[in-house]
């Protein structure tokens, strides 16, 4: 009845999804967006890994950081006086004089647990006072403790003070990193949005046809939201894979520092974060689709 041209040899063969649907076209724009978002997520991932390493190195997981104040060759009276003085320092939660047998046990452990501790070594050890910072301890706590100890001829353990200062600094760095992550996320949303805008232009006929067939707002938007989400999640997965080479490269150095860093911890944040910025980008790109679908003459 109808003449049928023999052009089956020229027919395209495209991979099909379950249900018979074709995969959406994935062109140069999508590849570029994928690479840009991947690089951005990779950079963010590296920064967070760095923070993770720093936090591990400074024992950021410890909530029980305490200062130790030492007093050389002091009688019990002076130690007691210094302890009372330390209790009056603003920001101090608790003060405890460390008993000598506790010091002996700690030193024994530190020396390898030989069991025999020379008396002259024990006698040479300074008296030790343990200060627990209170909930409202400020950044001047170390300086105040040092002043109080100096008045009695004592000193504060500097290593512990540096640890606390480093932790405080890392807390600031974390805040800045959150801000940077938000800025980068915004940039990624815009990149994906622009990419999908180009896709929207390329598929304007399809959108108009959907409208003519009576499609609702979300029916038209959904393919683009899915595309944005998948693009973002794909970029997240790729960036996660790219985190491993640098992790392996600095693995020995991290081990020396005793810094425990886990790349797996960033798997879900990168993929979910990527999908989220992808969906937000798609929402932004399809905002104008929400305009009226009929003209008023």
């Amino acid at each position: 009845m109808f003449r049928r041209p023999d052009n089956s040899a020229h027919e395209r063969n495209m991979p099909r999804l379950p249900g018979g649907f074709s995969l959406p076209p994935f062109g140069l724009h999508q590849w570029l967006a994928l690479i840009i978002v991947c690089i951005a997520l990779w950079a963010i991932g590296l920064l967070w890994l760095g923070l993770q390493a720093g936090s591990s190195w400074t024992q950021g997981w410890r909530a029980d950081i305490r200062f130790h104040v030492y007093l050389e060759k002091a009688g019990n009276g002076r130690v007691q006086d210094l302890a009372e003085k330390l209790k009056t320092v603003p920001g101090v939660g608790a003060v405890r004089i460390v008993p000598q047998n506790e010091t002996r046990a700690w030193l024994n452990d530190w020396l390898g647990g030989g069991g025999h501790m020379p008396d002259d070594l024990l006698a040479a050890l300074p008296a030790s006072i343990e200060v627990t910072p209170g909930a409202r301890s400020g950044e001047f706590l170390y300086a105040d403790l040092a002043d109080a100890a100096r008045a009695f001829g004592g000193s504060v353990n500097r290593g512990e003070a540096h640890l606390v200062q480093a932790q405080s600094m890392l807390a600031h760095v974390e805040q800045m990193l959150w801000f940077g992550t938000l800025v980068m996320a915004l940039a990624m949303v815009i990149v994906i949005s622009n990419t999908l805008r180009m896709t929207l232009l390329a598929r304007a006929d399809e959108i108009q046809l959907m409208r003519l067939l009576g499609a609702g707002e979300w029916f038209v938007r959904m393919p683009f939201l899915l595309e944005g989400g998948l693009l973002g999640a794909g970029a997240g997965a790729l960036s996660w894979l790219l985190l491993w080479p640098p992790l392996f490269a600095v693995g020995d150095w991290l081990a020396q520092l005793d810094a425990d860093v886990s790349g797996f911890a960033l798997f879900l944040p990168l993929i979910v974060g990527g999908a989220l910025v992808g969906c937000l980008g798609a929402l932004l790109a399809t905002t104008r689709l929400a305009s009226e679908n009929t003209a008023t003459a």
Partner: protein
Amino acid sequence: MIQMNRLMLRYPTGKTALSGMTMNIEKGRFAYLTGESGAGKSSLLRCLYGGVRPSSGQLSVQGVDVRRAGQGQIRRLRRDIGIIFQDHRLLFSRTVFENVALPLRVQGWKPDRLVARAEKVLEFVGLKDRLWSFPEALSGGEQQRVAIARAMSTKPPLILADEPTGNLDIDTARHVMDYLMELNRQGSTVIMATHDLHLLDTHPGDIFRLHAGALAEELHLVSGGARPAQQGEAHVPQT
């Protein structure tokens, strides 16, 4: 099915496409909109599916007041209308199946029913074996038949066809008309804009001749003989 009274359509450019159109099209009819280019055929069809809102007058399509209907009402109206365009508007990046299944998806059909339904309507137009082809691999006539399959896939009570045979040779055009006539016999109201008047010899129907945006002549097909003229109506004998 369709009632309009003093329908007027003026585009934002200032051009008046329809001026005081008054006509009724009953359910189950096969109606031709004829007239010269620019007479208002396509504009009238656009009004019927809510593509443009009339500037004044009244237009009711399947009980929906197109002029005052909200977006949701227009969407629901469109789901009850099958539209066939002169340039068929197939999606060339999608397979024939996806093109035919698009109205079904819009109406929320379950995915597992789509292939069976698409096969059925493609069988009606003789293209069942091209389900997974892309439109670019089809001839012009085949593409138009896919467009017909798409328009009929949801069994709409109203089919609007805007010069569906405009780009086809005479033989292919007649076959396309056969399909539209068959849809009409199955109960769909068909309204077709055309200036291909020789098709009317072999595929008769009511004729609404437009001129300069107004109804110039109205000829009603009468089964088994001519219907008496009513207020200036003329008749087209059934062949």
